[in-house]
């Protein structure tokens, strides 16, 4: 079983948005931490790797879309 960090990395690709306001960066970091906690909790609850990745992906979808929309035009 891969560890939580690996599963989060596998589920959610890092997105580069260039210079973002510090407040947005803080939200992104908190979101990543939340996914990590979720991955850990799911692993501890005995969920399989694939299931964890799927849940992480679905949990993160709208956040990623909202972030991409918000940062449209910003180049890394």
């Amino acid at each position, binding site marked *: 079983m891969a560890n939580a960090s690996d599963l989060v990395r596998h589920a959610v690709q890092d997105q580069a948005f260039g210079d973002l*306001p510090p*407040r*947005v960066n*803080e*939200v992104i970091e*908190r*979101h990543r*931490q*939340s*996914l990590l*906690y*979720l991955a*850990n*909790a*799911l692993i*501890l*609850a005995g969920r399989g790797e694939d299931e964890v990745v799927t*849940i992480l992906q*679905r*949990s*993160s*979808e*709208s*956040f990623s879309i*909202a*972030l991409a*929309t*918000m940062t449209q035009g910003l180049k890394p």
Partner: protein
Amino acid sequence: MSSACALDHFGKAKFDEHGRQQALDRLQVVGAAKEKPFERIVDLVKTTLDVPICAVSLIDHDRQWFTASRGLGVDQTPRNIAFCDHAIRADEPFIVEDATRDHRFANNPLVLGDPHIRSYLGIPLKMPDGYMVGTLCVIGQKPRVFSPSEIEILKSFASLVTGELELRTIASIDGLTNVLSRTAWTSRVESEIIRTERYPSPLSVVMLDLDHFKMTNDCFGHDVGDMVLVHTMIAVRKVVRKHDLPGRLGGEEFAICLINASTAAAMALAERIRMEIMQLRFPEHDELRCSASFGVATLEPSETLNQLMKRADEALYEAKKRGRNQVQLGNDQLLAATA
């Protein structure tokens, strides 16, 4: 930013309802349409924890509002019977294993009747400023003991909801003036127009443009210009009602959507804002004076937001043309003739 809690002389956290309500109001989500992203999370929680009912509940003045829910069948309940109102009073999971055996809930109408709550687990949605605006909660219709890992799973989902709320706030609020951005304002007003089609009530728009703002920037600098914009919106907020929607359309142009406001009410409100703006004073710039021109239009049956804004904009143009610092009403007959 004030802190969410202070400690009383017993070292116990006191509940700051006023600050909490302000934190909720800043999110501008209560009463809005159901939120797809939260519905997705609610679906995931429901499946992952195998529960019949899950909701994102926001605790407003006197009600809890479900911005996403599954298995409930209602959009809101009175606050005084809400389990979630108990949950937001401490920064920890709130657990009821069997409501019928809990003296706080045994006679609760949500236990005795629909949805027949027996077990409840609610995680407070704690914003970065420390205020708890609502919960992510799961509800069962049988007694249930929630395991530590289930609690951890729900806590993680709750922090994802909080992150979404925060991101949305950043995206929808103009960073300088703290009112809705153009995109967010347009989206909210379109929702309100749809609502008035279902539940007819008057809706008016006031467009506001600061007079000679370029001159303010040129003479006093952009920092002072920004300060004028900020204080203009503070003046607007002093006058508008809680449920009205001020937004920044761009530059020195703002719009306010007045819910359930007739033309006469909108004209009167615009006039009061005009007076407030005229009274703005800046201690470090004694000679600086402000004024604004206003265009007002009230929604006609079957009218779109674009048409409404066009009339308000024409009225604003008329106010500028007639010498600025005044309120003008959109030409309703013009639309009626072309409809």
